[in-house]
């Protein structure tokens, strides 16, 4: 390239280069565009819908009201909310109880093994989520792997009622969100300075106490991050309860889905979505207020 050409090319970008603000805007504009068009706008639409009314044929009637939010306090829906919280809460707890020890074990292996072990953890998750959830149907149903095996061994005469229960949903959710708990915990434990653990043991703290007083408090941010990552999608889950929960087990996600797809009550579905979002946002803010920041 001759010098003249280079000079010409430079001059094209000159006006942008001279103003740092404009340069920043130019650089973030693709992602900004994406976020506005595909994230913020649909949210705004849903938010507006939540204050409107459903017409007799499922169309939107442009009439402002708060009725959709009021319906939310119907005992039927409150019950679904409570049950969803319970299932998501148990899922999070089980993920923690299984995931933290695994994360700890991986983080304390020799460095060259850690990445391999993390890869092994994630390989199953390269398969489609739906396919993996159907696999649980095959395992849990009355004629499934577990029941057939137990009956074949003569341990039970009737199939255990696994499929279609809250237990099945919890199993499915734990399986689905397990890596989301393990990875943040792993990151926190791997960062932990283990000379602090030695210091605790040197100062007369046995294994249990050095865990409670030093290891756990210092890795708590990872546990909380993992819990948020597991709790939120579990609370809004609909594929897992739909496939594994059977007809009786309904969670918030299923209500929202049915409002949009079968009842065709867009405004109520929108209001329900926003109520869920508000609760999660509130809970997250509460966490940052109460102690998240000091960690």
């Amino acid at each position, binding site marked *: 390239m001759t010098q003249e050409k280079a000079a010409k090319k430079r001059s094209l970008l000159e006006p942008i280069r001279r103003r740092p603000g404009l340069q920043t805007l130019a650089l973030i504009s693709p992602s900004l565009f994406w976020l506005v068009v595909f994230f913020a706008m649909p949210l705004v639409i849903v938010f507006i819908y939540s204050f409107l009314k459903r017409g007799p044929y499922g169309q939107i009637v442009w009439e402002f009201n708060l009725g959709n939010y009021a319906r939310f306090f119907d005992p039927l829906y409150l019950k679904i909310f409570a049950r969803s919280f319970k299932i998501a809460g148990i899922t999070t707890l089980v993920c923690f109880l299984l995931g933290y020890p695994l994360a700890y074990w991986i983080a304390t292996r020799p460095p060259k093994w850690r990445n391999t072990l993390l890869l092994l953890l994630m390989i199953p998750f390269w398969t489609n989520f739906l396919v993996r959830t159907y696999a649980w149907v095959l395992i849990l149903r009355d004629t499934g792997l577990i029941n057939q095996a137990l009956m074949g061994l003569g341990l039970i005469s009737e199939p255990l009622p696994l499929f279609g229960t809250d237990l099945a949903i919890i199993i499915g959710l734990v399986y689905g969100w397990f890596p989301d708990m393990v990875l943040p915990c792993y990151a926190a434990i791997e960062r932990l300075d283990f000379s602090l653990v*030695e210091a*605790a043991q040197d100062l007369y703290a046995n294994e249990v106490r050095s865990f409670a*007083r030093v290891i756990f408090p210092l890795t708590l941010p990872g546990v909380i991050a993992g819990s948020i990552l597991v709790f939120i999608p579990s609370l809004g889950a609909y594929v897992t309860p739909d496939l594994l929960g059977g007809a009786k087990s309904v969670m918030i996600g299923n209500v929202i889905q049915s409002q949009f797809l079968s009842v065709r009550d867009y405004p109520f579905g929108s209001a329900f979505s926003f109520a869920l979002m508000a609760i999660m946002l509130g809970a997250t803010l509460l966490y940052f207020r109460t102690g998240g920041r000091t960690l």
Partner: protein
Amino acid sequence: MKDSIAVEIRAVSKRFPGLGGQPEHEVVAVDGVSLQILDGEFFSLLGPSGCGKTTTLRMIAGFELPSAGEIYIHGRRMGLTPPYQRNTNMVFQSYALFPHMTIARNVAFGLEMKKVPKDEVTRRVQEALAMVRLADYGPRKPNQLSGGQQQRVALARALVNRPEVLLLDEPLGALDLKLRKEMQLELKTLQREVGITFVYVTHDQEEALTMSDRIAVMHLGKVLQVGAPTEIYERPACRFVADFIGDTNFMAGVVEGQEGNQVTVRVDGRLSVVVDTEDEFSRGAEVTVAVRPEKIRLLLEPARQACNAMPCQVEQVVYVGTDTRFQVRLSDNVVLAVREQNLLTPEVLAAHHAGDDRQVYAVWACDSGRILLD
């Protein structure tokens, strides 16, 4: 309690499995070390990195268990006793202060674990912080303190428990030189005050000489010499110790003869030196003679009574304020470093400045040299 043994290490070895766990890749970090550390002593483990000094310290603390041998603390066999049941405390190289606790909570940790009553904990924590001159820092977090302050907190956190033995793993390594010199004296004073046995690991020979009552010099997992700083410096047991601690001139040679406690060693051609010794050497034995640079004087006249007075040429003169460093050639193969204090201007320095190229004599006493076998 004086002169009773605080820590006894009996024939302790530590082997670490090497890469892949194959026995041929095994690393011997500590190799048959035996030491007796006296009560109330400031004892240093000195050696280059990888010599096994830190591993030895960690075995006393209980973080590592010996592959062979036994460690006794005040006569009690440690065996498999975990660190939290040993009455030792450690000051870590990285300080290892708990970042999520205040300074006061850090210092209180050991006492709380030992279930000391609350008001006593508060009192002792305050005393310990006052001892390291950080009385007002209790409510702060470790990251609000400077490196030197954190180091003192680590010291208070260990000493507040009144351990039988305090273990220090290069605690001054991360500090800058000036602060390190201050802390060396402070640590030594503190140790005298509290009277607790200190086992101090360092690779800095000057630090070890400054602070220790006794030093064990380690190399490749073995203890080469144990002794007071003067003994280690003046009477090194082997070439490694002489070389590692301070500067030394080495002259390889052959024993010509021995008369009483004086050995004559031919170091190069017609050049012979005379050295005091307590040992017997046979004629023809190959030995190394070591002489410290500050033990040699440069004179313009050969001193008649001097044990060794060698004519030499001055090759280099470096003036460094407190002293002057010379490099002198005795023969084709023998070059010595000489250090003279600038108490008065050394006469050879004055002659050098005046452009006087007269014959110079390197002079040292018989007991200034030392014969080393390896």
